[in-house]
């Protein structure tokens, strides 16, 4: 073996054995395993006499989304709120907190933004100027962030001061949010902010003022995809900077990785817990506000947040809580969300199949044992011999 050859081989080795490469491969293997499992389920169902047309599944679940511009646009439309809820869960995770409450935080952000821009601004004399001011677009967004942040602050404070576990409290806050929404917009008889003239079955607010609306990028392609996706991308990048380049992010990560050491180094971990939960809630809340501001007909209606908050948990998990990979994971889950919608509208194929696929990806990704085993078998074993010789040479270097 020549010197050069050996060197390049060594380089390849270090790439293959690098933890990040392993992570990437393991994610891919998780997809593969989830895909196989769903295929297996479909085969079983077909043999059991259910009519699942592969042709339809491909057409509406894959082709119409990936190979049409409107399908792609709608995927991106779902990507936007998923980036926010993914960041929301991811940031909390980085601080060592499992925020299950993004769903409720998002819903509260959405409804408050709608109430602000549809009821408060037009009906308050000293605020009416905002109905024409472009500033209102940002203010509405912030209102969502503030209320979402409040919804995160409560579990954060409870955790910091009384040790109440955030998983329990955020789940309960989700319930509070659900019933709050019902009260605010659910009933035409008593809800204070409901649109009473609406003929739709579900509760909804009035339409927001024009200045708070976010326009579609290209209405001829899709009525849904709007400029808020750029806000999402910017905020994801900002969150990356916050986590890895700021003093706040450093303290947040230290607290999440080892609260004992963080405390011993002088970090006020209780304060960090509260701040992280507020930030987490605010991100979900902004996501909710943008959902209202960017979706025709520009109002909040009950259930419009779908399960995007919970899908955020999956996004964060898949992206290992890193802001930039969260964008990619959101894209993937955005696609799945759209394919779910597509299958529901156009075919008899149960959209739950997509749910199953989502769940399986998470299952395989979060129980890395199987995937790691496969990865090590497939890729590492082949090079194991070289690896051991490499280790030896490393040891020699250390000794010398």
């Amino acid at each position: 073996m020549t010197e050069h050859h050996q060197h390049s081989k060594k380089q390849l080795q270090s790439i293959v054995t690098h933890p990040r490469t392993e992570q990437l491969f393991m994610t891919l293997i998780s997809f593969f395993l989830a895909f196989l499992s769903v295929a297996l389920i479909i085969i079983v169902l077909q043999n059991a006499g259910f009519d699942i047309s592969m042709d339809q599944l491909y057409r509406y679940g894959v082709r119409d989304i990936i190979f049409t511009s409107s399908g792609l646009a709608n995927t991106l439309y779902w990507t936007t709120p998923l980036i926010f809820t993914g960041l929301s869960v991811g940031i909390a995770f980085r601080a060592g907190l499992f925020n299950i409450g993004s769903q409720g935080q998002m819903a509260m952000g959405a409804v408050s933004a709608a109430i602000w821009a549809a009821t408060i601004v037009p009906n308050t004399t000293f605020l009416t100027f905002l109905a024409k001011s472009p500033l209102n677009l940002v203010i509405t967004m912030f209102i969502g962030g503030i209320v979402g942040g409040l919804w995160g602050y409560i579990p954060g404070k409870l955790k910091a001061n009384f040790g109440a576990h955030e998983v329990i409290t955020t789940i309960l806050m989700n319930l509070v949010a659900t019933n709050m929404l019902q009260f605010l917009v659910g009933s035409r008889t008593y809800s204070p902010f409901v649109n009473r003239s609406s003929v739709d079955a579900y509760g909804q607010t009035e339409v927001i003022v024009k200045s708070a609306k976010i326009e579609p990028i290209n209405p001829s392609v899709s009525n849904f995809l709007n400029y808020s996706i750029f806000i999402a991308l910017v905020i994801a990048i900002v969150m990356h900077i916050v986590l890895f380049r700021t003093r706040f992010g450093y303290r947040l990560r230290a607290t999440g990785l080892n609260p004992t050491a963080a405390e011993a180094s002088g970090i006020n971990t209780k304060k960090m817990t509260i701040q992280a939960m507020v930030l987490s809630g605010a991100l979900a809340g902004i996501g909710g506000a943008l959902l209202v501001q960017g979706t025709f007909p520009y109002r909040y209606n009950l259930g419009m947040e779908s399960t995007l908050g919970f899908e955020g948990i999956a996004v964060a998990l898949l992206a290992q809580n890193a802001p930039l990979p969260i964008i990619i994971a959101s894209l993937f889950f955005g696609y799945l969300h759209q394919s779910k919608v597509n299958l529901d509208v156009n075919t008899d194929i149960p959209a739950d199949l997509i749910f199953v696929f989502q769940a399986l990806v998470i299952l395989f990704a979060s129980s890395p044992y199987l995937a790691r085993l496969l990865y090590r078998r497939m890729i590492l074993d082949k090079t194991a011999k070289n690896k051991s010789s490499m280790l030896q040479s490393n040891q020699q270097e250390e000794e010398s």
Partner: protein
Amino acid sequence: MDTGPNQVAIVLENISKSFGKVRALSNVTIKVNEGEILALLGENGAGKSTLMKILSGLYQPDSGRILISDRWLSQLPESQRVKNQNGDITEGLHEITISNPREGMLLGIGMVYQHFQLVESLTVAENITLGDEIVKSKFVIDDELMFETIRTLSEKYGLPIDPKAKVEDLPVGLKQRVEILKQLYRKANLIIFDEPTAVLTPLEVEELFNTMQELKKAGKSMIFISHKLREPLAIADRIVVMRKGEVVGETTPSTTTMADLATMVVGKKIVSSAERAKTQTHQVLFEVRGLTLENPSSPKPLLNNISFKVHTHEILGIAGIEGNGQTEMVDTLVGLRKPSSGSIVFSPHEGQTVDFTSLSTQEILNSGIAYIPEDRGTQGLVQDFNITENVWLAFHGSPETAQKYAEGQQKTHNIQSKIFLPLQLMKTTSSKIVNTFNVKAQSINQQIKNLSGGNQQKVILGREFAKNPKLVIASQPTRGVDIGVMEQVHTNLINLRNEGAGIVLVSADLDEILKLADRIVILYEGQIVGEMNSGELDLEELSHLMISGTYSEEENTK
């Protein structure tokens, strides 16, 4: 002296065990006779627990053999007998292997742990039979038979207890009795008691000793692990003393005294004071007055009225057996716990005083002290951070300190930003520390968990000493590091002292304290029970104070 059949029951022969580079046991041989209580005495880290873990099957020895008597072997259940019969036989002893705790149990070796292994919400009988239940059919437990069996068992050994009582309702002494019955139910031949008196009241200790006498009559062998002196003297037939992984002596209670035993446990220390520059001006740098920390779950405080002073140019050694309040004291000094009463005053410059009791940990650390935490893995470092990020743990509250260290007067980097991390400064600081302290790492971006313990400790020392501290609070600074790193740590501490810093050195390693400290205070059960200058040390007294908290008897009667 011959009481009962003085026949060997079990022998541990030339047992050695290392963890990495640390040798925990070297060539340890002990034997236990039938119906004998053997006390195993030694400080923390003497190797007692490791030896017992080998005996119970938790660890495998690197070398050495375990042998049991013919009689013991013949009492074993069929499967174990066949399995071990092929082993080497010498003088009626059979070599056995204990590959896991379950096998140890089947061989008749039982352990009563200091922390009970009981299910609080189950009854006494259920706890005893758990894992080997008395059943009617495959899935149904035969309650009647179970209670009856346990009642007979407790009567047989004279250990009265209500089999139907819930364990959570029992006092500590009776819980321990349940543990003992558990071992007897499993037909243990040898019962190991791991510091059994630590949790008991004096009356309960009396009870336990009666129990042990009963068991002795029934022919059971017992090993009694302790680091106290009085109890082995009261109950044991033989006392084996261990120190630093070796057996250093064997004696019987009738032929030894407390003082002799204390010297044997702690060892003959050579006062090899490190070189120190003699200095005259000694100004009080740090003063702790009446520090008390209440224990929320017990009327006995964790720290009781602790007072001491540290001067400039001085290393104050806090000696004591571990678990006597050292951890709590250090936590309180750096503000991680708030004292119930007392004051902690730091005077970095003449005329200037800072009261730590009213400050947060961050403010205390910023006031010019270095803090080396006891447990580097959990308190000192964030394992998933890289070296640079871990170095920054010491500076994130005051980047100016890092700047002073890394760049002197140059101030090349702007660190004024309240928002952003000074990434460049972080790298410079980290590189300088890695180079100065000779940390063996591939790069400053390497994750700290991939470094050896010694190198991790160097990172902590490096970052703390880089603060150019006036006062160092060092807790177990050389735990688990090899000789080379230990020397480096010691040299660094002495240099700092010579430059004028005051150092509070808490260490379970008495050698380290003797080598470094100018003055020693002894901590026992949360109280300071004695103080000595390194010049006028009475080692016997020191050992005695550490182990019993009082001066030896002659001193008391004066």
